[in-house]
């Protein structure tokens, strides 16, 4: 347990901060860290604006934008009509003007009406205009299940976006990473989908829904610099070094995997991908070559999920180092159920079974 927590401490090499370093730290949950990222960026750059359903006066249904409208005014932080297509289309136009919009889609499950604007417009504008126009947009959206959200508040649609050329996909797993990655995404001149694992907004989740929940106050990565810093996009993080196998995960599943490994007593190397596109292929290759075994864990549905891409990449690049077939642990190819949520969720039981398989022989 001790080694596990130690390894979750932010690596100073991750932090890109101005000279003199961040001004100090505070305990934050993931919501507060995300709020702080937007606050820092709005203070630094007058072109950063925040918009979305209920994000203004109210501060968002998850409170991620609380206090920002009072601080930066209604023309920089505002509520929008309930039209995701409109929110992203307007953000593309604002980006073309020269602003740096940070639109919120209230739940990832509601992002589909905006798909055309994201896939055909934001993601391709730089290419199709040969750089005349760009889309420096960061789309924040809570995703994932485990909160009894039913099929319309639980989905993990990251694989839809990783399939699209021209858009980056980022998923943090701690408050520290959430703030640093969000700042990097906002500063990035390309469109970024920033999926926030809402199950771990308040604390890391070990996958045991029937046990008491933890909060970030006891977790080292809940200690977050109050000022500016960023974590480079496209860099994975080894959250637990190990020799026996490589586990590739992101978001909530990073914590579930850590708990499973600790209970099973397996010396796994757990890699938190943090950015799916661009992917940190070097970290993955180095780890699998060392361990010879690979397990991929995500909550999203299985077929054509991002795990399929990871599995293909590991097979292509590390085949001769593999000692066992790659294991994929995922949600099922069903809608996210309500009452059977914990049967759907790839929790300790399913991960544990896959672990036995990949460690056999």
């Amino acid at each position, binding site marked *: 347990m001790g080694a596990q927590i130690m390894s979750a401490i932010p690596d100073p090499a991750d932090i890109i901060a101005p000279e003199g370093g961040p001004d100090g730290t505070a305990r934050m949950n993931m919501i507060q860290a995300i709020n702080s990222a937007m606050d820092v960026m709005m203070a630094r750059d007058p072109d950063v*604006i925040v918009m979305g359903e209920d994000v203004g006066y109210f501060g968002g249904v998850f409170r991620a934008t609380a206090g920002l409208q009072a601080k930066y005014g209604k*023309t*920089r932080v505002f509520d*929008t*009509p309930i*039209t995701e*297509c*409109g929110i*992203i*289309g*307007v*953000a*593309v*136009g*604002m*980006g*073309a*003007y*020269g*602003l740096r*919009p940070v639109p919120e889609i209230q739940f990832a499950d509601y992002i589909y*009406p905006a798909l*055309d*604007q994201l896939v*055909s*417009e934001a993601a391709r*504008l*730089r*290419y*199709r*205009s*040969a*750089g*005349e*126009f*760009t889309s420096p947009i960061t789309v924040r959206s809570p995703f994932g299940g485990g909160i009894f959200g039913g099929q319309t508040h639980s989905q993990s649609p990251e694989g839809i976006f990783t399939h699209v*050329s*021209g858009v*980056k996909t980022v998923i943090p797993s701690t408050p520290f990473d959430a703030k640093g990655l969000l700042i990097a995404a906002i500063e*990035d*001149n*390309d469109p970024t989908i920033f999926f926030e694992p809402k199950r771990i907004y308040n604390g890391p989740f070990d996958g045991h829904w029937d046990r008491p929940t933890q909060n970030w106050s006891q977790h080292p990565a809940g200690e977050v610099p109050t000022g500016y810093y960023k974590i480079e996009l*496209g860099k994975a993080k080894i959250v637990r070094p190990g020799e026996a196998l490589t586990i590739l995960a992101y978001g909530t599943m990073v914590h579930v995997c850590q708990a499973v490994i600790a209970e099973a007593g397996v010396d796994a190397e757990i890699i938190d991908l943090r950015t799916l*596109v*661009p*992917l940190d*292929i070097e970290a993955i290759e180095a780890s699998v070559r060392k361990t010879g075994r690979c397990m991929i864990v995500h909550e999203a549905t299985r077929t054509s999920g991002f795990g399929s891409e990871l599995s293909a990449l590991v097979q292509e690049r590390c085949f001769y180092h593999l000692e066992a077939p790659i294991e994929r642990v995922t949600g099922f190819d069903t809608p996210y159920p309500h009452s059977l949520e914990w049967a759907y969720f790839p929790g300790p039981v399913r991960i544990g079974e896959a672990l036995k398989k990949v460690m056999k022989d």
Partner: protein
Amino acid sequence: MASDLPRANLQPLSLYVPEPKFRPGDTVDFTQVAIPPAGEVRRPDTADRAENFIDLAYELVRVLDDEGKAVGPWNPRLSPETLRAMLRSMALVRAFDERMFRAQRQGKTSFYMKCTGEEAVAVAAAFALDYEDMCFPSYRQQGLLIARGWSMVDMMNQIYSNKGDRLQGRQLPIMYSVKEAGFFSISGNLATQYPQAVGWAMASAAKGDTRIAATWCGEGSTAEGDFHSACTFASVYRAPVIFNVVNNQWAISSFSGFAGAESTTFAARAIGYGIAGLRVDGNDALAVYAATAWAAERARTNQGPTLIEHFTYRVEGHSTSDDPGQYRSAGEATAWPLGDPITRLKDHLIALGEWDEARHAAQDVELAEQVKKAQKEAEQNGILGHGLHQPLDTLFDGVFEEMPWHLREQQAQMLAEETASGRPWARKS
């Protein structure tokens, strides 16, 4: 489970499917199209609230009458110089279209789209807007670039995807992007530019800028969700934006009835959103100019958005890939009751004593020569299919600002394959 049989005491339902009035071979009679006399529609003050002139969404703003006189409150009273400049731009657009259509037929490019009969919609708007105002066009507003004086050679380079193409051969012909001329990158996806124009306009307002945005779509694409999202956003934030709906009666082979034209006008879409709506004779350059100038003044004085329906007719096919003879009567274009926009403006100038047929004919010859000269120059940069005009490796540029490893890897793979194949395609270095 529903019964297989209708309930005997109830009349069975029937599904209505619209059908255009005329199909190939039919004699065209447009007498049912209501064309009110020019000059009759009132012109509200630009500060008036939209709810006070909802009737204008059902009228037809017309300035040029049948004798070529400019009449009524919408007459923009333009100088003869401006009128002649507008006429020249419209005639240049038509000459450009003719030449590029032919270039496609000669196999010099893959695709072209004419705007014949709709020249006034884009050209007169460009004259009414400020050069700094931002346009979010659809694919039939080449008149904006021509009227803003943009280089035809540059446009043709794009059409040919040649080595002078500012878009590096990445876009379908005519999907221009010219930031310098306030012309946003055209998308092939319909009406996506609508909310983008609103976003640009909102940004301009939020920054205390003075520039406004204008956008165009066809009547067919008003059915897209983007159109309605844009109207809602524009209404809510009173965005300084002008929505233009070019009602040219046809969306490829679907007549305007499939976008709802049998039930109401497209200008009337504005009413539900509480934004100003105008319905304008799109073949009357002065009416288009006046409506655009009026809408621009509203936008510039924080009165919010205006939706203008331009009632016009698509004289040619949808594109070079379309044969309208397959689905509509060939007689429609000549029978169109609002005439030809170039002829009407020409007749007006002649009626004013500021132009004559001989000068017009001479101008047509001059413009055709100008286009031909531009074409020759553009073709020195190559035509589509004759060699590779962009270095191979540029295929991967601009997906992201910085190329990530997976694209670098795919690029290296492509270059290695091409080298092995012996195909003599150029590299950047």
